[in-house]
């Protein structure tokens, strides 16, 4: 479940980085650090803002520094969203 989520986020991010760099998405290395892609702090805010909107959650720009590649950031987001999902489900199911 989480793997599927992670792949979706990875693909979405790769497409976005490819658009900014004006290169084909297949040329985007998902294990390369964001700063190595030349993304400055403003571009990083732009990317995390768009990603947060896409996922429907608040995403701090510092996430790209804590998880500095497409692959690590996607895994972190997929895992934390799954954890939140489980928590939300168990809260719903909890007796009043």
């Amino acid at each position, binding site marked *: 479940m989480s793997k599927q989520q992670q792949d979706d986020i990875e*693909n979405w991010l790769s497409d976005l980085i490819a658009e900014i760099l004006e*290169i084909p998405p297949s040329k985007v290395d998902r294990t390369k650090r964001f700063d190595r892609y*030349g993304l*400055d702090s*403003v571009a990083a*805010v*732009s990317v995390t*803002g*768009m990603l947060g909107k896409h996922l429907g959650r608040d995403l701090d*720009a510092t996430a790209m520094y804590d998880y500095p590649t497409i692959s690590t950031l996607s895994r972190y987001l997929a895992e934390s969203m799954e954890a939140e999902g489980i928590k939300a489900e168990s809260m719903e199911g909890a007796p009043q």
Partner: protein
Amino acid sequence: MSATSKPAIARTLESPRLHRVQQRHAIAVVVLSATGILLVVGFAVAGYPPGWAELANFAVFFIIAGLGISVGFHRMFTHCSFKAATPVRVALAVMGSMAMQGTLKFWVALHRRHHAHSDEPGDPHSPYVLENGTPLHGKLAGFWHSYMAWSFGHEVPNTAFYARDLIRDRIISRVNDLYFVWVAVGLAIPAAIGAMVHGGWIGAAQGLAWGGLIRIYAGHNMIWSITSLTHIFGQRDFATPDRSTNNLWLSVFTLGEAWHNNHHAFPSAAILQFRWYQLDISGWVVAVLEKTGLAWNVVRAGEYARFTNLNSDLPTSGARQP
């Protein structure tokens, strides 16, 4: 996976954090400028008026940082008006960063935004309209906004939209990210020169004040003159859609950038000297770089610009690209 599922990349960013960063930077410029003025006045009162060494220190670093901004940040990086060898690109990026007018990518993004919306809503520094579209009616209000007030509250231009070519440039990105190092170097070198000339802390402080702080202040006044005065006073040789003007009296101090109407008519021209009296120091530097083989593909406005009559229509082809 399809690109259509994605929202478009925004031109400006709604980010309180980045707004704060920009504001702090603008305040730092004011504080450093004021410190420089206080130091200089203080030294003069205490019996250390500026000598030739101080004035030379100022002039040399004003020209170094000014050419970095004009030849580098503006004509090469923003408008791609010529190509240059990597060492030249790096040197110009470092020199321009020393002016403390923001990182290269920020500067380029902001100036491309100015060209996309000149004197219309969206222009970060027009004397006629605020960036959000509110018209500026008063002459003084328009001047003040376009001179320096704009630098405290403009929108954050998105480098991922406006400066993608620089994001793709590995080496220039590294130079960009070391911005504060270059600002510090631009303060430390003149201070060291002052210390060598006069010896001791007083010499260092005088060097810092003249070659560093006052020089940064003068460089900002140079750029603020262009954002304001060259959209208010002066001659309009070309009937551009904006209100840009040419100003002979500002041309030396701005290293040629005051031929701003020429520039808006031919944004990708590397040399703004269309007539013999239109002194363009930055253009001369580009020409020298070209002669020595360090620059090539230098875009010129062509014969049209030289022989055209005043207030002529714009050419529909040729050098007029954004």
